[in-house]
């Protein structure tokens, strides 16, 4: 596992995670490089979602869980006492498995992240909403219906809305937790294209069930099994010439 390119935006060191007595992550060491897409793959229940949710401390809200080891964001421990978790989550945005827009209008969905930060200026809000929708490749489809309820959109549009909503607060990192598992193939293609464009301005981490997706969109891939990191390398290497036997068996579809 010798990957040395770029600057590590996020780095985990011997990351352990427990749900009560159950150990869900075992000494995971992964680096997510700046302006690169890192994919996390592995069979169901291998801890990939748990892993990505530790990066913005979303697991904090689940009672009875515990983290050990270190997660560094720009070299600073995200569990340090002086780190404000609210600020952390603003810097590390997240898009979830199922599209989860708020039961509000399209406009209000995107403006939400700005409004909670106290932005009231209507013109500024509009500007950011338009920019975010463009950034999420959704603008053309919704520009005439910003006041409509977000639930009126299709699943794929809702997911891109959620991406736009995450972009609006100008995060540095965007975490995608199986973003395409609940949407159709055409919508999936759109989201994948989008992820590739996001890489220019953001650090992206994506958990996916779909190996082709990982191969298509990512620069680096981490393969996990049973809470352990099996192999982490440049995506091309993982998919053409993996070092570990388990990785090879998984990517060739012998289990999973």
């Amino acid at each position: 596992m010798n990957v040395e390119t770029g600057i590590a935006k996020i780095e985990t060191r011997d990351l352990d995670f427990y749900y009560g007595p159950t150990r869900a992550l075992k000494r995971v060491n992964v680096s997510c490089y700046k302006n690169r897409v890192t994919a996390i793959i592995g069979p169901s229940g291998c801890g990939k979602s748990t892993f990505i949710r530790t990066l913005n401390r979303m697991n904090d809200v689940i009672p009875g869980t515990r983290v050990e080891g270190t997660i560094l964001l720009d070299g600073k421990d995200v569990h340090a006492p002086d780190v404000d978790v609210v600020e952390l989550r603003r810097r590390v945005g997240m898009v979830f498995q199922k599209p989860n827009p708020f039961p509000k209008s399209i406009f209000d969905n995107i403006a939400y992240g700005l409004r909670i930060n106290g932005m009231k200026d209507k013109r500024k809000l509009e500007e950011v909403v338009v920019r975010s929708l463009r950034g999420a490749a959704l603008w053309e489809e919704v520009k005439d219906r910003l006041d409509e309820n977000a639930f009126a959109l299709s699943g794929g549009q809702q997911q891109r809305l959620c991406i736009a909503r995450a972009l609006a607060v100008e995060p540095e990192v965007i975490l995608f937790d199986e973003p395409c598992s609940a949407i159709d193939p055409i919508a999936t293609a759109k989201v994948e294209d989008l992820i590739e464009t996001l890489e220019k301005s953001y650090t992206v981490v994506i958990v996916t069930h779909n190996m082709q997706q990982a191969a298509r969109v990512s620069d680096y891939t981490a393969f996990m099994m049973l809470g352990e990191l099996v192999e982490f390398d440049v995506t091309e290497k993982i998919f053409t010439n993996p070092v570990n036997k388990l990785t090879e068996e998984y990517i060739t579809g012998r289990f999973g």
Partner: protein
Amino acid sequence: MRKWASLEESVIRAFFLTCGILAVLVLVGIFATLLSTAVPAFKEIHLSEFLLKKNWDPTSPEKAEYGILSMIVSTLMVTGGALLLAVPIGIGVAAYLSDVAHWRVREIVKPIVEILAGIPSVVVGFLGIVLFGPAIAKIFHIGNGLNAVNGSVLLAIMSLPTIISISEDALNAVPQAYGEASLALGASRWQTLFRVKVPAALSGIIAACMLGMGRAIGETMTVLMATGNARAFPHGFLSSVRTMTANVAIELGEVPYDTTHYYALFAIGLVLFVMTFIVNLVADVILRKYQEREQ
């Protein structure tokens, strides 16, 4: 074997059908009885006089008066006051239980709140007489604490369990995904609670408040014991008031059968029925509006 199954099927169907019809019949029956007993009152009393006149003196030897406006106002005051207290507190407690409290605290507090709903109204009224009455008299420097405020406080206590319990269910029913989405955008838990969860649960919370109001508006024994029952038109929350329910309860036991007075008391019941009906209707309309917006 098959024959038995189909017989069983039809017996069960018949049973549930009967239950359903029975429920409707009881409701229709109550309304019909109320209506038929109330209507004769209006042979002698003009409807506008009944609703808009302030004086209620059906036993006057000179001229009997049948105006229930004072009682309507009293009922609205006591109920409104109760809601003013119970709604903010109720929603606050519900939010605390659903979002803030440790699950162990919730497991203890929620059943306690629900037990509170089962306290007999006489007991609550008793509290009003021995506890809140003197306290109110002391605080406001008045001679007698049996007044509208006292009734409001007690009715607030009585409607709180309903409001808390149903609001909390509504807040818990808000999909976790909303909360996660909000937190992931860098919202604090308070922002998440007030800007995402409460709005998403609003239809349930409104329903909770309306049910609480229904409980308060129809309550009899407590207000009868704690509000003083003066017939005069109330001139403030510190006046002693007589609500519609209390008046019916006080007078129905002594009224001669088949008199205008007797029928007028049922007419009060009918007005109360119409009032609660309107409250429910309004609640329903509001609920539907919100649900449309959410879909």
